[in-house]
């Protein structure tokens, strides 16, 4: 249960903070959530990572859906990801997940356990 709450809280708070702060707020938020909700180290990492994986993945997918992939197809050629919108959404989610995961992992060592 705590695990699910950590995921949801990371995603929700990161979304809200993202309206006002630069993109790296995801690291700060997942760090804070992990510090506030004690979980085993591995679970902290996964909760932080999944929180942002879902947030960024769903946001990117929704934007892309509304845009009919006009831009993602172009950017996926520049980056280069073979012009694949889905790959670009996946990469987006993974980049966010990686940072959030490590931030949450670091915070999990702050607690006595």
């Amino acid at each position, binding site marked *: 249960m705590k695990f699910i709450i950590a995921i949801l809280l990371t995603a929700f708070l990161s979304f809200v903070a*993202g309206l006002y702060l630069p993109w*790296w707020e995801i*690291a700060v938020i997942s760090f804070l959530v992990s510090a506030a909700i004690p979980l085993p180290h591995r679970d902290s990492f996964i909760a932080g990572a999944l929180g942002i994986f879902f947030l*960024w993945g769903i946001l990117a997918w929704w934007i892309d859906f509304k845009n009919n992939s*006009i831009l993602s197809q*172009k950017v996926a050629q*520049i980056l280069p990801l073979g012009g694949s919108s889905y790959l670009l959404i996946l990469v987006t989610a993974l980049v966010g997940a990686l*940072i959030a995961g490590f931030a949450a992992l670091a915070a999990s*060592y*702050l607690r006595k356990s």
Partner: protein
Amino acid sequence: MKIIPFFIYLIITVGLTFSLNRQWGSIPPIGKFISPQQGFWQNADALDKDYDADLKFPGLRDNVQVYIDERLVPHVFANNESDAYFIQGYLHAKFRLWQMEFEVYAASGRISELIGEKALNFDRGKRRLGMVYAAEKSLKEMEADSITKYECDAYTAGVNAYIDNLQESELPVEYKLLNYNPEHWTNLKTALFLKYMSLDLAGSENDFEYNNAKNHFGLSDFQKLYPYLQDSLDPIVPKGTVYPAPGIAVKIPPTADSLYFAKTDSTDVFESKPDKRNGSNNWAVSGKKTKSGRPILCNDPHLGLNFPSLWFEMQISTPQFSAYGASFPCAPGIVIGFNDSCAFGFTNAERDVRDYYEIQFKDESMKEYWFNGEWKPSTFRYDTIKIKGKPDFIDTVAYTVFGPVMYDKKFTGDRTGGKKYYAVRWKAHDASNELKTFNRLDHAKNYDDYYDAIKNLHTPGQNCIFACKNGDIAIWDQGEFPAKWKRQGDFIMPGNDSSYMWQGNIPQDENPHMKNPERGFVSSANQFPVDPSVYPYYLGGYFPIYRGFIINRRLSQMNNITVDSMQTLQTENYNVFAEMATPLIIRNITESALNRDEIEYFDTLKKWNYRNDINLRGPTIFVLTWKELEDAVWADEFGKCPGPTVYPESNDLLEAMLKDSAYKFFDNINTPEIETLHDDVMTAFKKAVVTLKKLEADRKLQWADYKDTKISHLAKLAPFSRLHLSVGGGENCINAAGADHGPSWRMIVELTDVTNAYGIYPGGQSGNPGSVYYDNFVDKWTMGKYYQLWMMNKNERDDGRVKYRMMFDK
């Protein structure tokens, strides 16, 4: 608490975050770029994005309403002109901010700031030509005029109102990719953009190349290679027109024969030039030739095809005027368009208004130069060029009585280490206020207003076309043109003698012009404005002849003209150059000496109807044969000519072929035999067939596949470009759509009581590659179709065409 793993993972997190927040080479800061809430995803506009808005700006004097139609064309209704230009600036920035800044960076030689050292030579070239110096001088003139001053101030305030309210997430995607931020707009930036247009349209001449050719071949052969007169010319003002005695008597310097024409040293300057195909068509037919009995005006400027487009379509309405048409993001006003009384447009005048002088400095410090028998001090301009990832580069440019010493021992164009000093005298260095031309045209009600407006246009010189609801049609070959003696400035001139300087300008009323001619039409397509054998001034420059020739032929034949027949003419793929050249090529090919493959292509060429239509093979065969023919005729002689040179124009070669069977350059000087035109054509055709067979194997023989028209993004990003467009026409056709160049705004205006206007440009109103409005005009443009242009009336705000409403409050 476990300190060690905590710090390890903290460092990993911070390290990752930092490295994904910074740029590595040309890779953008990935974290920042990819973040769905701040990065490029925010530029992926929803297909049904709502552009409605209620905005408040203290800079406004009154409320302004903007109605945006289904093509994203804004119709601005303001109660005063200051507010109208403020909103125009705001809208230009909203839809085209990155492009505006990029164009100004290019104009002022600042591209190295964005992409690093590889742009340094480009930037130095712009600085050394004096682009900023020229813009600063013009800005003074613009700001001294009360109309232009308030217009620019309002426009700049509008651009900055947008920039100041811009969220990071809303930055155009190119800023995110290249990782930089917009600066504030200034009036100087508008002036710089206008100088960039001057460079594009009045910054092309072949002085160094001609100098080398003249020095190698001698003056007499030079005249044969690059004759001044053209046999097939149909000038803008028809042959037979009588010109008054010149108001300014130009004197050839007494030393010209020995120190100018007979000089024989070559130059080592490699000059980068704007596209020589920068040109345009325009014409206006009078009511007696049209079905409606009202004039029709047409214009299509041929410029580089880019994303975002050079043009932004809009309407500006105030109590003083209503104008609709194509505007330049970067500048206030409507440039090519119409108002409630008249329509106006431009083609390039093509005059040579840039000359070079060889400067003799006392020593390498360039502090003093020899001029009229004494050492004269030069002044200096120090240009600091910022380079991404590198220390600044400081360029020192000496300024002389002529202008900046553009080329010296440290700069020769595309390489360093020149031997000589060349100062540039460029008409665009003279202060002028071209913006006022557009402002006054937008307000013009009749011919007199039009003439008052265009008199402000000094550089780049333009053929300004005009048609009015009262029935008047007119054209002026307008600009402030130096009055030159014959061949003045075609070669490098001595810089130590004031007698070689420009001696004055052609008086305004001696600029070629026509109003309501008997023949019922006026037209221009960059050809000579006059018959150069009788006009009292030397014109210089490069004047393509074939588009003008076919336009005049067609317009003379046409009657009962409608908008439809004008659309057909504007997108006409007939190649009149091929009509003149192909029979000569065919006559010079001996069929019995051809192999089977060659005969097949030869048959196709013989059957060709001279149309550059998309699915024909004829134009490909013709163009390749002609290209090989030019090589067969010129490569031997020009291979021996030191320094950069340029082949004579196609029309000069064709006219030599038509009238001089013993033209000495047909001979290949590298063989003992004496070759004739017949030999050259055979060689060329056989060589062309080798290429044609390869093209056929690659399925690129059909004209559109071979020509392969594309519209490139300004930063050369292929995914933001449109490639492989199926478009006919090309060089020498009225539909001058080349590979990366062509009709950038096709406009047709019938001056009926309710104006009946059509237009299209190859692009879209939004500069955002993530918008459905980025390239939505392109497909229709390639098919040669048009949109009806809607000069909206304020009481039509509930019309179905209005899709969005932006309300601005003071």
